[in-house]
């Protein structure tokens, strides 16, 4: 079973990477891009019986390891 975990900086946290990319895009003339935020994306191969167990496992792993609660929040998708 596969879970996808999206880790993003909390809105209140300045995102240096997103900022540099946005600047670069503007200097390239992409003014249509108002803002960029960069996050991390994880694909987890899980040996779980059902989606629910998979989600719980993914959430535990995200809480404990993949995200830093001080600056980041995460979202999980299971399929």
């Amino acid at each position, binding site marked *: 079973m596969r879970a996808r975990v999206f880790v993003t*900086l909390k809105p209140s*946290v300045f*995102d*240096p990477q997103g900022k*540099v990319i946005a600047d670069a895009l503007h200097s390239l003339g992409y003014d249509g891009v108002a803002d960029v935020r960069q996050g991390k994306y994880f694909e987890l191969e899980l040996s779980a019986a059902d989606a629910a167990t998979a989600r719980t496992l993914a959430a535990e792993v995200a809480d404990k*390891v*993949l995200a*830093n609660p*001080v*600056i980041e929040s995460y979202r999980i998708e299971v399929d």
Partner: protein
Amino acid sequence: MKFGIVVFPGSNCDEDALHAARDLFGQEADYLWHKDTDLKGADVLILPGGFAHGDYLRTGAMARFSPIMAPVRAFAERGGPVLGICNGFQILLESGLLPGAMLRNRSLKYRCEHVHVRVEQNDTPFSSAASVGQVLRIPIGHGEGNYFAPSDMLERIETNRQVILRYTDAAGRLDDHSNPNGSVNAIAAICNEQRNVVGMMPHPERACEALLGGVDGRVIFESILRAVERPALQVAGRSR
């Protein structure tokens, strides 16, 4: 006194810390392997710089799970002096022994160069030999030293006088240009509320010999010697 230098897989300033403590300051010093579970009777702990576990995922993110971290935590809670340098600082943040988190440098580039930092507080075991306002010239070498704390946390840190070093110019003036990584409030080093755990991005062990271009880092080690000789300082009276 005895230094314990914690070695994680990927640490790379462990030898430098040992060299400073043992060869330059004539102290007993020993490595503590991350899989160890006892501190070999160390009086002071240094978590050295490097790229523990490759700094993959997040700097310091995986080191905090190493077996050694349990006794390190206990040691810190007993008031034992713990210094995290660079990656060591990041590990202390990730393991919650210090408040806040690190972001990529705002330039997104690794930066290795001498910077100036101003001593903000000297009632910690790692700054007691310095005077408040003193400006130190010490090298940095990091790609993720952009210190961040949410506003409420930051306020607590400032009111508790937990900021130990700030990036300034050579004259000790704060200006954005002298901030090498974008750290909030130009923070280069902080301590915990008990003031016995300190994390700093600059590398004092790289500034202990004239031959290497500067000796301003010595004051950090001299502070440790004092602190441990006179434990009174260790629990640092005025902290509330």
